[in-house]
């Protein structure tokens, strides 16, 4: 276990030097961003089993506020990130309080609806750039603008955030909070009978998840230097988090990272190979892969691994 983590850490740290090129760095940045967003989603969607299909609402807030403070007051965008986190927390409470009383698909439905509501609303609100969106500083005025020519600084910034998030998730996993989340996912009624404060625990999970999703959004807009309603609050942003996490294994520490390690390069590769042809083959493949995985590996790659691992380990280590 320990060695695996170490190998992963070294691989991620060394990656930019193995593939020393702007494009690969950019893919690395995209991969880390997907991993951060999906890991953040994983806290509430994976561990607690509350499947949000509207996490773009936190991502979008995280993405908009930094560029908004830049456009309004010429502040460095990163200064908006804490404000975005605060707003996301408020939103999480507003969403969580009513919907966590409900069971089943209501929470999913509510999150979709609220995210769409915000997307449409932002698209009509001139103050935040309406449909056209907001731009960041075209050229950095100093390092504090975090507008770098190279992708490399972003890569390591994102990597640090991912490391912190995984560390926090690991701590959650080991704590009472983490056990309670898993108990809620397994059965709310039983969890309550054992004294688990279900609503409060779910809300705490949503808050923690919202914080990191918001940070992911801030990282995205600062790096991209642009945000509009679709790339901030679009339903595809939410769905991507779900897919990445579910593919790798929702409710496991490294599941979302594994999902990102597979999905992001696959997306880029299919788009690179087939996108220019313009036949839509990219999405036919993408859709097909998701469908086949869901059909044959409903538990994600994590469970496939759990099945295969014993067989693979029959070699020396077994002794």
């Amino acid at each position, binding site marked *: 276990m320990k060695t695996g983590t170490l190998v992963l850490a070294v691989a991620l740290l060394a990656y930019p030097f193995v593939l020393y090129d702007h494009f690969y760095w950019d893919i690395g940045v995209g991969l880390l961003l997907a991993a951060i967003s999906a890991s953040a989603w994983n806290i509430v969607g994976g561990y607690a089993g509350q499947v949000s299909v509207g996490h773009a609402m936190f991502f979008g807030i995280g993405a908009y506020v930094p560029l908004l403070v830049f456009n309004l007051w010429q502040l460095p965008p990163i200064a908006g990130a804490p404000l975005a986190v605060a707003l996301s927390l408020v939103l999480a409470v507003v969403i969580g309080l009513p919907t966590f009383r409900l069971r089943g698909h209501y929470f999913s439905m509510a999150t979709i609806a609220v995210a769409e509501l915000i997307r449409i609303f932002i698209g009509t609100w001139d103050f935040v750039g309406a449909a056209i969106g907001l731009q960041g500083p075209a050229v950095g005025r100093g390092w504090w603008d975090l507008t770098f020519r190279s992708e490399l600084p972003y890569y390591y910034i994102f990597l640090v955030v991912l490391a912190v998030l995984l560390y926090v998730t690991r701590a959650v996993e080991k704590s009472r909070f983490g056990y309670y989340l898993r*108990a809620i996912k*397994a059965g709310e009624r039983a*969890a309550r009978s054992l004294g688990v404060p279900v609503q409060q625990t779910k809300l705490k999970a949503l808050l923690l998840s919202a914080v990191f999703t918001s940070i992911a959004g801030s990282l995205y807009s600062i790096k991209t230097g642009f945000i509009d309603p679709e790339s901030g609050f679009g339903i595809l942003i939410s769905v991507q988090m779900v897919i990445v996490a579910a593919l790798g294994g929702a409710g496991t520490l490294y599941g979302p990272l594994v999902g990102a390690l597979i999905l992001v390069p696959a997306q880029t590769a299919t788009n690179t190979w087939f996108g220019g042809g313009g036949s839509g083959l990219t999405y036919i493949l993408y859709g097909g892969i998701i469908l086949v995985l869901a059909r044959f590996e409903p538990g994600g790659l994590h469970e496939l691994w759990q099945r295969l691992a014993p067989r693979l380990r029959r070699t020396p280590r077994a002794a």
Partner: protein
Amino acid sequence: MLLEADDVTMAFGSFRAVSGASLALDEGEIIGLIGPNGAGKSTFFNCLAGDMVPTGGRIVFAGADMTRASPEAHARAGIGRTFQVPTTFEDMTILENVMVGAFLRHPRRADAHEHARRIVEMTGLKDQAGQRARTLGTPGRKRLEIARVLATGPRLMLLDEALAGLTPAELQQAIALVRQIHATGVTLVIVEHIMEVIMTLTQRVLVFNQGHVIASGKPDAVVKETAVIEAYLGHGRRKRRP
């Protein structure tokens, strides 16, 4: 007086599942609830556990009014329950299942772990502690449910058919376990169809039929009452097991 349920009524629309049931329980008692299926004992049981809020009546536990309290508040107050159909956390290990209960009185992980280990040992699940709950059979699950509740440190345990579906040998072990739990000072309410359990374990029995308590008293006396026999043979959908 540990628990006092007074005139508890639970109506679903015009249908009264429980109609004015009362129960007074002293610390250290073991009592049984019996009656044919659909007699209202499970509903009454759910009211005691906080899973349902009764439409009428009052439930007081250790001096506090629990009538409208949530299930988790019941657990905190010291009322633990098992479920008729086991609801173990399938993807968590046996030990982790028990730890969820243990966390109630032991917020630190190390303490909860330590406490859960003791409980697992006491309930005879030590050998399977590292397995996922889904690998257990029915007897194992029932046992795990009891262990999980025990870990919350209850003063009162409500067992809902926790001993059904066991082989005679398993049943003897289970009865021994319940006795052991009782010996540690836990008060018990048992819903059970198996008369053997009721007769050997309980000190007092309440008989439910059609939402009413039709008889109560010592087990051997109660089973002889005509009303009880009628309820079982006349209206009951289930055969009496002597």
